[in-house]
């Protein structure tokens, strides 16, 4: 018996691409391609990675908005793919989601009162009066004035809509909430309000979070453990502090070095990656990061590294998928190379 509330085993979600006159399948998006995660009850797992790497798809597949191509999701020890419809619905009560753009997720023609009452109705909970009381309690908890019940989503700011989205997600007192970039669209001053609210709710309700984001400072702040994703795969996962203190995968190292530090007196060595993220339709052979990796060797182009315990970290659950994990890239040399490249370019003359 483990105390993992959620366990994801080798999850795959491939989307077919159709095209041509006959609308035949002409390709596959390997959006999520073998992801394994474990989240302990009451903890937060941060899932971080660049746009298009498959973070949202992981969240949606866990929720079974998509039927996974392969792999298992165990929630509270139960394999979700073996559950019937009714069991699944009951389980969903305990597994909620918050979205990046609360506007899209809130029905614009429903009042806030209706939106928040809906989960209670779906699960036939309480009398209308009891539900009304619950809705008001929820609004109060997330810091929205009670008179909101008769108003519509567009009458609220982005931050307020996110609060409403959170209220809906916690309405039925779930065990776990998947937060998909809940603060990415918000201003700095509102972002900290929402992060604090999420932390408070976690403490009060012993919530478990899967927190998806691309902002590494936000992820670090809210998470106990962090998994770094690249092109449909987890490349490194570890205890949050260890990941930042000793990142082992060259991708993680680059991501961390690319964070702009809000302190002008700090001048850090930047590691600039060359090129863009490749497409998940034709992911590179071998290690998917090899096309941009600063320490790439021949082996990386053919042999795919497995996610396994990193050398020197046994027992600390620091996993990394790199043949040369922990070998610090010689970024010095690389940046000299790119400096040389810059010099070779024709100068813009004034």
């Amino acid at each position, binding site marked *: 018996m483990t105390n993992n509330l959620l366990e994801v085993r080798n999850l795959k979600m491939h989307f077919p691409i159709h095209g041509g006159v006959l609308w035949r399948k002409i390709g596959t998006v390997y959006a999520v391609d073998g992801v394994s995660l474990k989240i302990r009850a009451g903890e*937060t797992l941060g899932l971080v990675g*660049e*746009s298009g790497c498959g973070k949202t798809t992981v969240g949606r597949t866990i929720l079974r908005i998509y039927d996974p191509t392969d792999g298992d999701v165990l929630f509270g020890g139960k394999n979700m793919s073996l559950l019937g419809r009714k069991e699944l619905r009951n389980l969903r009560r305990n597994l909620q989601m918050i979205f990046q753009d609360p506007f899209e997720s809130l029905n614009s023609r429903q009042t806030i009162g209706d939106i928040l009452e809906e989960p209670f109705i779906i699960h036939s909970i309480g009398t209308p009066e009891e539900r009304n009381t619950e809705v008001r309690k929820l609004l109060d908890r997330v810091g929205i004035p009670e008179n909101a019940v008769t108003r519509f989503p567009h009458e609220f*700011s*982005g*931050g*307020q809509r996110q609060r409403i989205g959170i209220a809906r997600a916690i309405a039925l007192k779930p065990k776990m909430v998947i937060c998909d970039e809940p603060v990415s669209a918000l*201003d*700095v*001053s*509102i*972002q*900290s*309000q929402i*992060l*604090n609210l999420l*932390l408070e709710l976690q403490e009060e309700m012993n919530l478990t979070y899967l927190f998806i984001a*691309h*902002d*590494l*400072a*936000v992820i*670090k*702040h*809210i*998470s*106990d453990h962090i998994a770094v994703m690249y092109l449909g795969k987890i490349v490194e996962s570890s205890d*949050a*502090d260890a990941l*930042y203190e000793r990142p082992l995968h060259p991708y993680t190292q*680059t*991501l*961390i*070095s*690319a*964070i*702009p*530090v*809000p*302190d*002008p*007196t*700090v001048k850090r060595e*930047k590691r*600039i*990656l060359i*090129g*863009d*993220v490749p497409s998940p339709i034709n992911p590179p052979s071998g290690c998917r990061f090899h096309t941009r990796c600063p320490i790439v060797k021949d082996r990386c182009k053919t042999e795919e590294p497995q996610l396994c315990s990193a050398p020197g970290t046994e027992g600390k659950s620091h996993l990394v998928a790199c043949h040369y994990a922990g070998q610090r890239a010689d970024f010095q040399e690389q940046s000299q190379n790119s400096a040389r490249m*810059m010099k070779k*370019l*024709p*100068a*813009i003359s*004034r």
Partner: protein
Amino acid sequence: MRNILDGIANPVRQSHSDTIKLSENVILNIKNLVTAFDTEAGTVRAVDDVSFEVKKGQTLGIVGESGCGKSVTSLSIMRLLPKPAGRIESGQILFHDMDIAKIDADKMHTIRGNRISMIFQEPMTALNPVHKIGKQIREVYQLHYSKMGGKDIREKSVEMLRKVGIPDPEKRIGEYPHQISGGMRQRIMIAMALVCKPEVLIADEPTTALDVTIQAQILELMKALQRETGMTIIFITHDLGVIAELCDEVVVMYAGKVAETAPVIELFKHPKHPYTKGLLSSIPRLENQRKVKLNVIKGMVPSLCELPQGCRFQNRCPQVQKICSVQPHKKSVGENHFASCHFSESFRF
């Protein structure tokens, strides 16, 4: 190439009597700028009495939350406000010996995209989706260098794309905007803005929609281009990390007004306006302990139609007092450091 600028080297004297004289190191001076929009709820001043100076060859950052007037300020400088709803109501935008706020449209044509260029917030809306990249860059060349031949333009375009780090530029010019990544589109926007070797480049959140690794590439590129050409950059962002990394001086805006301006190190070390202080203390930082409460600025920005009397930050300010219902004036609070707060001197960090 300098000759195409000759026509504006000796501009006609402005209609009003006093000659404009900017100090030696200043390239752009915004003075008491007011920009208004007619809306259903009446006229709103999206930019209300904004003043700041931009120093030659430096990077000035404008930071502030959504709707505070960053884009409207830059559109005012470019004279690209949506018509007829938006207009510059009063104030000056001094550039060399001209007041951009008042010069006629023809003259503005010789400045816009030429001596002052802009990169827009969303590259996809700024690029025309039905035209190939090559054609769009060609148009910029044709507009500004009417004598340049087709072959020359092609060569220059390819060179320019290579310069901003686009691999295979010969191939890219035959592609459409949707065929390339967001980072690549932003590079193309930068390339197009640089065609005329502008003296001032206004970049409106050029990296906000991009991933951190791509953002790092673009920021490095802009630094390199500035080193090389000596151009002045106005960089708009809401990311204090980007400000710290890139800028020499900073303007902090709040609800259409300037809250504080300072050299970057001074701003981060000794913020004087409670809004700046609040911002700096509310961002999650890597070096801080995890899962502890962040400081917050309570409440939210008032809408432009429901502004309070006096200081616009008063409903969120931890130091608010009676006097705050009077609009505070810009005060000198340090070397080259100004804040608009009644209590800014007495603050200690």
